[in-house]
Structures are given as C-alpha cells and as structure tokens.
C-alpha cells in the first residue's frame, strides 16, 4: 500500500497539481490580456490601412460574402469617392498562415502589408520588409513567381531561399486581385 502511495499516487497528484496551477495561471493571463491584445491588433490594422491608402479618410468594412482565404474587405473613401479597396487575406505560408492586407486601386496593387507571420526569421520573415512589398506595387492580373530577376510585367522575384513564403504571398495577392475583379 505504501508502494502504491509512493510510486503512483504521489507522482500523479503532484503532476495534477502542477498542471492545474499552470492551467489556472494561463486562463487568468489569457483573460487579462485578451482585451489589450485585441485593441493592439485593431490599432495595428488601422495603422497599416492608413499606410497602404494614405489619401483615404474613412474606412468601411464591407458586409459581403467572402471566399477562400479572404477574411475581410474594407473600402477606403476620400473626398472624391473610393480611394481603394483593402482585402485581408491569409494564405498558407511555410510554417503557418500569413495574414496580410492587399490594397487595390483600379485593378492594380497599391501596396501590400504583412500584419502577422511566423515565417523563418532571417529568411521567409524578410517578406514582411518594405523592399519585398514594393515588388508588388502596380502589378495586376495573375502574378507568377520567378527565381531570376523579374522581366515580365506580372512576375515577382522570389526571396532568396524563401520560395515557399514568396509563393504564399503571391497566392494571397492573386486571390485578392481575383476577388476584386469579380466584385468591384
């Protein structure tokens, strides 16, 4: 009976106690941080939208049927009408979904902004940099990935050793462009 107590009951109870305390702590921290995290994400999204369509004064999230990886569509207005459309899309990247905003004006990409990603630091994570985003500006139609210097109008040069990430971002932009073309 002491064997049972020493070898099974006590280890089991201790492990249970530690797991229970950990679960309570995690639950409390999650509840406490839920609000600030959501507020911070909303603030980051608003800042990113303002950066993508600097001339837009008001943003209005559209209530419309969404397809595939697209999770939100926002129209930006300025004094003379529509400044552009921002499509939020989350294609599957190398390690997880890459959440990004694609701003489209008159059927061409006005800019892209990656708001959340967990790609490999130093390689795929470079996709969030300004230099890579600039490769998309002005592109329209169906885009393709190339590993050499992009020559054709619709080609995007891949990030060195991050082809999968590049492909994911291009897929996301393509999906946003296709959605724009069939809805606006």
């Amino acid at each position, binding site marked *: 009976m002491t064997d049972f107590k020493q*070898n099974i009951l*006590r*280890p*089991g109870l*201790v*492990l249970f106690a*530690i*797991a229970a305390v*950990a*679960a309570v*702590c*995690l639950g409390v*921290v*999650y509840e*406490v*941080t*839920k*609000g*600030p*995290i959501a507020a*911070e994400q909303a603030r*980051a999204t608003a800042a990113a939208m303002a950066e993508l369509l600097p001339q837009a004064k008001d943003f209005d999230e559209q209530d419309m049927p969404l397809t595939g990886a697209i999770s939100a569509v926002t129209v930006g207005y300025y004094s003379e009408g529509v400044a552009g459309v921002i499509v939020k899309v989350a294609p599957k990247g190398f390690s997880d979904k890459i959440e990004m905003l694609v701003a489209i004006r008159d059927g061409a990409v006005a800019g892209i902004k990656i708001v959340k990603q*967990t790609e*490999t*630091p*130093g*390689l795929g*994570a470079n996709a969030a940099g300004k230099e890579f985003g600039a490769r998309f500006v002005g592109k329209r139609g169906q885009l393709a990935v190339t590993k050499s210097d992009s020559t054709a109008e619709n080609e995007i040069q891949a990030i*060195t*050793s991050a082809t999968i990430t590049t492909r994911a971002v291009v897929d996301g932009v393509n999906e946003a462009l296709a959605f724009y073309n069939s809805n606006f």
Partner: protein
Amino acid sequence: MNPGKIIKNGLLDENPTFVQVVGMCPVLAVTTSATNAIGMGLSTTAVLVCSNFFISLLRNFIPSKVRIPCYIVVIASFVTIVQLLLEGFLPQLNASLGIFIPLIVVNCIILARAEAFAAKNTLAASVFDGVGMGAGFTAALLIVGSVREFLGNGSWFGLRILDSSFPRMTIMLLPPGAFITLACLMALLNYLRGRGGSQ
C-alpha cells in the same frame, strides 16, 4: 556556490552551442543577421533564467518519476504567459522579439538546464546558471550571426560595411553557411583550448 565560476562555465567551459552542441535549431535558423542573433539570445536568456528559477523552486516537490512532464508543463506555461503579456502590454518589444518566442519553447537548452542543473542546485545557483548559459548562447549566436551577415550580406547589425560592388556569398545566409561557420568556429575553439593544455 561561486557565481563567477557558474557564469564562466556557461560562457566558456560548457558553452551550450560550441561545447554541448544543444539547441542547434535556432542557431541555424536565426543567425542570418547579428540583430536576429541578439534578439533570440536575449529572449532565450530571459526564459532560461526564469525556468531555472521555477524548476529549482519546485525541485524538492516534484517526484523524480514525473519530473520531465512537470518541467515541460512549467516551462511551456511560463513561455506562453510571457508571450501573452508581451503581446498585450509591450507591443513594441513583441514586434521585435515576438517571432523568437515560439522557437524558444522547443529549444532543448531550457529543458537540458532544468534537468542537468536546476533540479539539483539551489535557487541562486540555478539563476546564475541561467544567466551564464544564456550569455554563452547569446555570445555564440552573435558570433555566428556576425560572420554570416558580414560574408553573406556585407553588413553588420544592418549597417552596410562592404560596398555593394563586393560580391555577396549568399550561401552564408543559407543553412549550409551556418554549418560551415559553426564548424570553423568549433575547430578554432578546440584548437585554442587544446593549446592551453587543459586536455
């Protein structure tokens, strides 16, 4: 207990990267630039110090039969709490270090130190061990990252050092570059240690 000796142990004698060769995944993945190396090194140090603290605190309470699951629960919960707090209250810091935190959870240095040191030593000694090991890990990452960033991109901490007309060794930024750099540094370190007559 001798804090100086414990810290030196982590920095040199049992350097996690160059001597113990544990936690190689982040070493290979994030050392493409000196900035990334420092970020990963400091985040790991912070987690290591705290996990050593908690494990040492609980060392007499945890039965040895279930110690590994207990350590994992403690470390994983602790890291998740840090991640949530950073995301919620320190968004600036989270933007620069947040991407490294999921990598720390799977870093075996944390568990290795919990098992090899914190489970058998006093609270203060365990904290010093965390500082020493973290410093050793950070130093190793910084050296590898500096070499790779300089040779692969001609820059250091993002500052351009070589003119863009110099050819870039892109391979240094790819995983093989990490292995080549590590091998050269380990060979150098072993040579220096052997010469000191410690063997």
